[in-house]
């Protein structure tokens, strides 16, 4: 490609961009409305993603998947505790055993509760320690079937009240998260199809209003790509504006959400909040919107090119 051809191509792109930006500025309101529609459509899967992503990052912190809590009966005495301890140590499937006495657990609970007046009031009102003695057992295997077998075995020990597999709720959560991710994909797919149609229709209308210009340009020797360019830019710019607007909307929603969440999580003594800026999501949203915009206008231009005839 010669230098001249490169500068011609560059000028074509610059001209097309200038032309489209001028048109968009003249129709600022309708440009804004289309961007708003795109932004709203992007926001829905974006919010879903933020929620699911946050919960799954939270869930991935839990690593002791093979941890089992063994709660003893409240009336178990020290001899009974020793018996259970002995049985646990002898079990070949168990890697380590840690005893948590009822007093220890009670202390831990009180320390935690001190931060929060409502729950410490409740605890102070309790005259006696309601907590049982417990063993924290770490199994050698982390296979679900091995853990289940061990659970049944431990359950059968004398003086054992309850055996809890800590991983169970993690499993349920990750199953739910997997479902959530699938829902995001489906919602995002449907909305992408809707966006494609919206953008393609918008660009098609613009092509019809620019019909004279297209005919004249073709007559005086414009190539198809020269005619297509401004409309492709229009589609991509709608995507870009929609994507940027979606980021602003999403940040606003997260801020609002975090505010009301702050009150709620203070009551639960947690600092759960959504991150305001998620570069991966934001970049993904904008890129997807631009790509959809380009594709939508490409479809529209190709369809229109077949119907607009200069002869």
């Amino acid at each position, binding site marked *: 490609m010669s230098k001249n051809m490169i500068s011609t191509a560059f000028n074509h792109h*610059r001209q097309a961009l200038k032309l489209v930006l001028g048109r968009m500025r003249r129709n600022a309101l309708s440009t804004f409305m289309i961007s708003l529609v795109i932004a709203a459509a992007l926001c829905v899967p974006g919010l879903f993603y933020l929620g699911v992503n946050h919960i799954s990052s939270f869930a991935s912190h839990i690593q002791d998947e093979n941890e089992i809590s063994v709660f003893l009966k409240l009336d178990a005495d020290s001899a009974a505790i020793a018996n259970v301890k002995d049985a646990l140590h002898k079990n070949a499937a168990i890697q380590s055993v840690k005893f948590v006495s009822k007093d220890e657990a009670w202390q831990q609970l009180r320390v935690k509760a001190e931060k929060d007046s409502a729950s410490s009031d409740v605890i102070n009102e309790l005259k006696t320690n309601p907590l049982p003695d417990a063993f924290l057992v770490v199994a050698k295997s982390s296979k679900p079937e091995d853990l289940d077998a061990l659970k049944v075995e431990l359950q059968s020990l004398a003086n054992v009240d309850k055996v809890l597999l800590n991983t169970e709720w993690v499993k349920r959560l990750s199953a739910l998260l997997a479902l959530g991710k699938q829902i995001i994909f489906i919602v995002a797919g449907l909305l992408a199809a809707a966006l494609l149609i919206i953008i393609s229709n918008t660009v098609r209308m613009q092509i019809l209003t620019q019909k004279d210009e297209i005919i004249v340009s073709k*007559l*005086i*020797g414009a190539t198809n790509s020269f005619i297509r360019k401004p409309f492709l830019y229009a589609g991509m710019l709608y995507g870009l504006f929609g994507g940027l607007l979606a980021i602003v909307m999403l940040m606003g929603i997260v801020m609002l959400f975090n505010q009301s969440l702050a009150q709620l999580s203070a009551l639960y003594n947690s600092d759960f909040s959504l991150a305001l800026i998620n570069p991966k999501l934001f970049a993904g949203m904008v890129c997807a919107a631009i790509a959809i915009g380009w594709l939508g206008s490409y479809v529209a231009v190709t369809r229109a090119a077949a119907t607009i005839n200069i002869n």
Partner: protein
Amino acid sequence: MIKFDQVTKRYPGSYEVLKNASFTIEAGEFVFVTGHSGAGKSTLLKLIAAIERPSSGTVLIANQNISKLKESAIPFMRRRFGLIFQDHKLLYDRNCFENVVLPLHINGITGPEAAKRVRAALDKVGLLNKEKAMPITLSGGEQQRLAIARAVVSRPSILIADEPTGNLDANYAADIMAIFQAFHQVGVTVIMATHDALNRAAIQNRVLHLDHGTLKQTGTASSEQSTA
């Protein structure tokens, strides 16, 4: 430069608009295409400008066969011509400058170089002071002059005009004819369709006369006058 060899044009479901036309136009000629309305003048011009392709026969332009030209090469062929239409085909949402600059943009020429050429073209047709005006505010004659400026701005070697004076009164028409004469004098090939006998009688030029799609004579205007 332009060579038609037994060219026939038939539109789908219609009679032959042009029948077995053979002629040659050399570089620098001023040729009139005459005939009643519906005689095939516009079709002949469209064939020259590569807007239509012949149903049979060959159209050679600068030694290139239009029928065998790839679709993607057509736009570049069309840039050799400056086209002027009876209905001007101006863009009414742009001012005069922006109308004239369009062919330059298509050729990738922008900036000061484009502005210089646009002003030169507007100057040639006497519209330099109307650069910022919208075409709708111009008179019919001025609009046609603007269309000529757009046709000549990329300095084509061939001008093709389809009844450029058809909608104009005699004064304006004379203006337009003078502009075409001026281009002809600097070596531009001019091909003009007209049914206006007055214009061509005044000038000693070659005439392609069409009668119901058949090329009747290829003489000069004066010889046609004498035989009439």
